């Protein structure tokens, strides 16, 4: 199954009215306020957010006003283009990842967003590409977080670098970097503890983790990925702002896109913060991590 297919099945699994169903009432319908309202509601139900939805609907309305011959089927096209435009930002790293050795990736996010699972999936991906990978268990707070990383490290064939529960995460990171240098490994993935973005002290702890790496090299960390659960509503925007401010997020990973949520909040996030989406997680097995394609996502959001 191709990525698009997978995304589409993932996104279409819900039985309720969603954007996916739009295509059904696009064809052959008169363009009137009722249709626009249905469109608006479908987008709102995908968590796209009031402001972005207003803008999308406004664009459609303008186009129809200017050109009376626009058919209802074309509306799908207009929306798709507009959605993709909203998501335009810097390119994801793609092939430029791992340009330096060792390449350091820090994973940050709120509790339960899927950081550890993502660490495991990423490690597996790099290992498959023949890269020597280590994971630093810098979530020293949550009970059994280190054990969870250990299981994922085993599954992915990565080396785990850990200290005891309660250790200072910045010091775990510091030691991990030195150890990775000594082992001449290619990638270091730092799995941090989940935290809510308005907890000032915990956010400062993140800054400390990035600062400690800058002592080795001001360009470090090479990547800071914000892990965002697809189920997240409009709070996702506040998460993106908060983590970017404290830890200098360089990109997003959207997880759990195999559930019934569409993750539409990424649209306002991309509009405001212009961050690339580096990966998406669809599924629970170790290789269920994929690159993100804005066009495929807009398509999957709009087709059934």
């Amino acid at each position: 199954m191709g990525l698009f297919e997978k995304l589409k099945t993932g996104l279409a699994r819900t039985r309720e009215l969603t954007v996916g169903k739009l295509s059904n009432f696009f064809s052959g319908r008169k363009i009137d306020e009722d249709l626009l309202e249905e469109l608006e509601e479908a987008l709102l139900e995908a968590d796209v957010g009031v402001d972005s939805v207003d803008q999308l609907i406004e664009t459609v309305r303008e186009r129809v006003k200017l050109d009376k011959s626009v058919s209802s089927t074309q509306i799908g096209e207009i929306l798709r283009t507009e959605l993709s435009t909203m998501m335009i930002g810097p390119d994801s790293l793609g092939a430029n990842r791992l340009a330096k050795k060792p390449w350091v990736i820090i994973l940050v996010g709120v509790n339960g967003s899927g950081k550890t699972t993502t660490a495991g999936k990423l490690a597996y991906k790099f290992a498959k590409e023949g890269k020597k990978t280590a994971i630093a268990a810098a979530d020293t707070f949550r009970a059994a977080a280190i054990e969870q990383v250990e299981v994922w490290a085993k599954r992915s064939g990565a080396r785990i670098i850990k200290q005891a529960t309660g250790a200072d995460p910045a010091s775990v990171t510091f030691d991990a970097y030195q150890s990775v240098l000594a082992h001449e490994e290619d990638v270091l993935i730092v799995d941090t503890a989940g935290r809510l973005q308005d907890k000032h002290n915990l956010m400062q702890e993140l800054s400390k983790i990035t600062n400690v790496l800058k002592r080795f090299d001001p360009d470090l960390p090479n990547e800071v990925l914000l892990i965002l659960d697809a189920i997240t509503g409009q709070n996702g925007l506040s998460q993106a702002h908060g983590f970017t401010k404290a830890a200098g997020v360089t990109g997003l990973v959207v997880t759990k896109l195999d559930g019934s949520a569409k993750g539409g909040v990424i649209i306002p996030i991309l509009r405001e913060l212009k961050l690339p989406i580096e990966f998406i997680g669809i599924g629970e097995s170790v290789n269920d991590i994929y690159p993100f394609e804005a066009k495929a996502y807009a398509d999957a959001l709009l087709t059934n």
Partner: protein
Amino acid sequence: MFDNLTGRLETFVRNLRGQGKLSETNVKDTLREVRRILLEADVSLKAAKAFVRDVQEKSLGHEVLKSVTPGQQMVKIIHDELVSFLGGASEPIRFGKSPSPILVVGLNGAGKTTTSAKLAAHLRKRGRKPLLVAADTFRPAAIDQLETLGRQIDIPVFSGDRKNALKTVADSRDYARELSLDCLIIDSAGRMAVNDELMNQLQEMQDAIKPPETLLVVDGMTGQDAVRSANAFLERIELTGLVMTKLDGDSRGGAALSIRWVTGKPIKFIGVGEKTNDFEQFHPDRMAGRILGLGDVVSFVEKAQEAVDIESAQKMADKLAKQQFTFDDFREQLHQLKNMGPLESVLGMIPGMKSIKGLQVDENQFVVVESIIDSMTPAEREVPKIINGSRRRRIAQGCGRSVQDVNRLLNQFEQMQKMIKRFGKKGPKFPGGFPGMPGF
């Protein structure tokens, strides 16, 4: 974004208050704004529409239009309607024959394991003897996590053979009886609402133990999907109540309203932090204030009560009454204020506070002030009047600040004392008695 939200609502509330009469048009405009606020708070679209319809019917009734203060009336209607949507009074946990099972279910990452441990500690405080049952055999190290949490709060954990969840749950009853424990809190595996296999397992579990209580744990930051996933659980298993987690963040928690509205199941608890006792009974009226962004005075007072010890507050109040407020007292009050948490979030609980333009809280200012006070001699702190020019220079040098900084603080302190004199006649109004602090 959230500040704007609060600001907007406050503006419209103010505008409404100013209206002499409420017409059908301005009711309509207001309702559009309410709908928007609800959607931005992640209330589901259907619930938001139903809500707005209800409010519209009520506000166009005679009461409001004839009322002298239609604006306030309308705000009250919105607030009351929210409370009723959220389910009125809070409901207790139901128990059956001992050991009575409580099944904890939810999506991945909602916070089931943490909630299980918090619930166990909560029930023990109320005289129950709980056993935690580790039935999440799917997520790596989930059982270890529950065992660690159990050790931390000193509550027994049963993990069976760590492989077969159904068997673990079945065996946990005998284990509880042996230890004469009277309730089982079963931490099940997280699942995507669409995962049939795990849903079947949950169904079998429920058939086997017939729990009088099955709690669905919902992440407080969930968006529109809240309704879909809650329905997916409802289709397959019986739910008796909800727990909303991660409500200590800045999420408005609109999912609470939608899920309650769609499922008709009561919200029983909310999780408000990472510590085991950050777990509260649900209060619909507080949640209503939160969704509307109207501030939460009750929580503010409670936080103040936690941070300030009553005795020293009383002493402070006496001092204020006698107008003997010194720099030592000032320093102590700064400490107490800091104990209440990040200043920004504390101030955010006070209605109207966020709409004050240019109110910048700089916590670093506290550090500056404290360092200056620390650099004073005890005598200077007691009687600030003796601080003359050379003492000012010495204080500034001692703390590494400029003489201007010291002067500013002394001026502020003098103003404060003046204010206290006025206060003193009536007694302080603030919880814990901290006086108005000019300059912050």
